[in-house]
């Protein structure tokens, strides 16, 4: 009993120290950022890739919109198919808060690289606002997860800001993608950009 009573205050002090350590731990982990996404639900941590979690559908389904129901949400969402469907060249409008929308052409390669170019005589900014539209091996993208509730895929897209310096963005790709692709980046900032594209012939 005496040994227990000695241990108790020590244990209590340890627990108190652990509790006191929570706020610094949260700051260190990046939990002090405002992680509300533009549609209202918190997205941190990022959704876990669904493809590693759910068995493949017994019958493959086409991401052409025909398999959607209930508000257009994909019924056979599969990350791999989204990745495949994304690959190709897309042309359409970039809508931003700075001024007129302009036409862009974006190519997502199967090797995880992308290119983006102005698709009209001249554009007010580069395709992703920052840096140049010159092709670069640093221009990479990846699709990491699906949010089947909202019907979007999420991932990362590295924007080349200046020489050899990139800035990671977290685009959200609307589903389904076949001939029509919409995605936005920086949606939770004051400079959201929406890309409304169709597959190039």
């Amino acid at each position, binding site marked *: 009993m005496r040994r227990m009573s000695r241990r108790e205050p020590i244990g209590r002090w340890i627990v108190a120290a652990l509790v006191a350590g929570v706020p610094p731990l949260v700051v260190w982990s990046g939990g002090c950022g405002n992680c509300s996404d533009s549609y209202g639900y918190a997205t*941190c941590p990022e959704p876990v890739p669904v493809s590693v979690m759910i068995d493949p559908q017994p019958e493959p389904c086409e991401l052409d919109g025909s398999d959607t129901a209930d508000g257009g949400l994909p019924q056979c969402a599969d990350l791999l198919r989204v990745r495949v469907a994304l690959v190709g060249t897309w042309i359409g409008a970039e809508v931003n*808060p700075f001024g007129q929308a302009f036409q862009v052409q974006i190519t997502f390669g199967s090797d995880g690289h992308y290119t983006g170019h102005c698709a009209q005589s001249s554009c007010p900014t580069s395709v992703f606002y920052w840096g140049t539209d010159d092709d670069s091996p640093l221009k990479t993208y990846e699709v990491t997860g699906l949010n089947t509730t909202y019907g979007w895929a999420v991932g990362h897209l590295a924007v080349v800001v200046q020489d050899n310096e990139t800035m990671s963005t977290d685009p959200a790709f*609307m589903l389904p993608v076949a001939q029509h692709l919409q995605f936005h980046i920086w949606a939770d900032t004051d400079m959201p950009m929406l890309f409304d594209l169709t597959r190039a012939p």
Partner: protein
Amino acid sequence: MPRIRTDVALFAGLVILSVVPLFAGHYLPFFDYPAHLSVPAALRHRADPASGIASAWEFDFRIVPNCLHYAFTYLLSYLMPLETASRLFVALFCVAALPVATAFVLRVFGRDWRLAVLVVPLAWGRCLWYGFIGFCAAVPLSLVIVGLLMQDLATPSRRRELGIGLLAALLPFAHFFVMVVTCALAAVLAIAHLRRVPLARLARTFAPLAAGPALMTPWFLAGLRAGPQPAGGAAAHLFASRPRLVDYAALLRHWFINGYFGHAEDLLAVSMVATLAVLLAYSRRQPTAPVPLAARNVPFALAGTLVAIYLTLPFEIKAPFNWWGMNVRVIPLLFVWLLVAVPPGALDRVGRALLIPAVVATAAFLIYVTVDISRTFNGPWGMAGFDDVLAKLPPGARLTGLYTDYRQRPHYAHYPFHYATSYGLLHGAAQAAPFIPIPQSWTNPKTVPAYPLAGDAALFSVSQHAAGYSHFLVRTCAGKGCVPDPLDGKPEFARVAESGRWRLYACAGPPCSAADIK
């Protein structure tokens, strides 16, 4: 006239202050809340042929979890307006009940009940702002059940065991996951008493707890079989979908006290955590009767169990159940059980003084929330004019919402208008979108026609998102980050009402079908 103790009056005053914001305006800025109201609204209006609910919604009355709020609101809606009934549920069972239940367990475990003032702001935690009404009501229930189990271990009573059984049966109807967590806590409590209490008495105390799981077994087993089957089995999925360890820390702030965008509430949250840490270490107490060893140590074991659950479970699973925000639900319970782990006995003068900063911060926070809900959310920025617009909605309307302000700097740490159209169902509409079918609900719409993601006006396409709807509710927007009203000036849509930041359009022609035009 009996003299009311100052500490009792102060505690009661804080509890009353904590429910005042709920009555500060007609509408509440909780994310899912209007969608939850759609269930009792559909139940009420299904007998009204003009609403079209009977044909547009499916009804499946069976024993399912998380339906207590719906049942309470539906039944009381015969005595008072449906929204008032729901608000009463939130005030009594989600907000006021938490500090009262905490005071109860503090007393049961021999701690100073006045520590419960620290829990008052926790009732306004992230889960309430998201509108997780059933969950918020389940947390106080869980505390009372564990408190009653502890009491029964010391002094067994048939009446108390009956009460445990009734509350245990009620708990999954408030929230299934909290029932599972409560069973885990009860198991730890039983293990802690294995050496001191005869097995027969343990069985007598804990047996009534089986009422909840027994009631839920058919639903749970059916759900296990019916849902998507994860690779490697359901148990493996729990581990495969866990986030990185650092993300578990990152989640803590948002899921503790974080209703507003920005860092204003962090001061309150830090004051609560700091006060808790100091109180855990500060052991001077007024002389009182000795507290049994189990009551001294069990709260640590319960808090440790909750930490283990938090770190073991993932944030989200997609199969076989689609459960979002899973492990973070234990955060409010963890705070309470850490509070119960402070040294037993009545606080001395210094101990009571330690509570003052948190009490002041709590009162200031609750006054701010009251003013915010009254002036901001129900004011010109928010829902002002919404009633006038809804009044123009005909019965049986199929309503979809288009929001033009998703790209503005948020005021809350969530978008509070996402389900605003669900209020249309309370006014006799047949359909409201955006709408995600509610799992484990007695009723859901049979189909929801296509709508842009989250009702984002920037993604609206007439060809894709107009068919199937008769009316369109647009939230207008001024300033940086706004997108234009996508229906403005389009001949297919006739504006029938505008008030505040809300516009109502009726479909006037194709692509709406004749059936859509009311």
